[in-house]
């Protein structure tokens, strides 16, 4: 099974709300107690020399112990698989400072045991003209 990958489009400096559903082997959702820290990284996919924009997210604010579904958050699209999301965090618009770019967005959680799990992965394209 390959890792899910999202693709979004927006204007420059427009924040991205990244949502992910992270499960364990038993099928239960990842919960706040499992996570010690969360970091995001935004990379200009066409410039290997560019310095990535990095930051951290607060576990208690972005990890939900119960799934957030379309009925509780309309940002979770009705077309998505049922079950909702348990990670939802905002990547600030300043991470997408230029138009006409394709940014690679990656959010990782460091678990209490030291393992790292991906919470969100995708491309974010900023329009050159708007």
């Amino acid at each position, binding site marked *: *099974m*390959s*890792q*899910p*990958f*999202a*693709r*979004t*489009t*927006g*204007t420059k400096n*427009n*924040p*991205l*709300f*990244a*949502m*992910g*559903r*992270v*499960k*364990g*082997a*038993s099928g*239960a959702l*990842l919960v706040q107690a*499992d996570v010690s820290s969360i970091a995001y990284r935004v990379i200009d996919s066409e410039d290997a020399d560019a310095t990535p924009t990095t930051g951290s997210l607060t576990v208690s604010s972005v990890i939900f112990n119960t799934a957030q579904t379309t009925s509780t958050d309309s*940002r*979770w*699209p009705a*077309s*998505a*698989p049922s*079950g909702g*999301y348990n990670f939802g965090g905002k990547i600030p618009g300043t991470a997408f400072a230029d138009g006409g770019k394709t940014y690679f*967005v990656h959010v990782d959680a460091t*678990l209490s*045991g030291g*393992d790292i*799990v*991906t*919470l*969100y*992965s*995708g491309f*974010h394209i900023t329009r050159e003209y708007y």
Partner: protein
Amino acid sequence: MIDHFRIYYFRLWHFLTQAGFAGNGPFYLDYCVGFVAGPEHSEGDEPMIFSTAHVAGTEHSEGVPL
């Protein structure tokens, strides 16, 4: 006297814990989607197989191979 029973179960517990079979781990990303405030909203999953893009309003395209 060596308690082989306890040693066996300790080894089994240790193996399962280290291998990640105990509890709920290992964790994996099952699905992800991004939301952009404003006029556009797009989403996608499994780009090597299938990708969807939704634009609120007049446009809607899907099945775009990447």
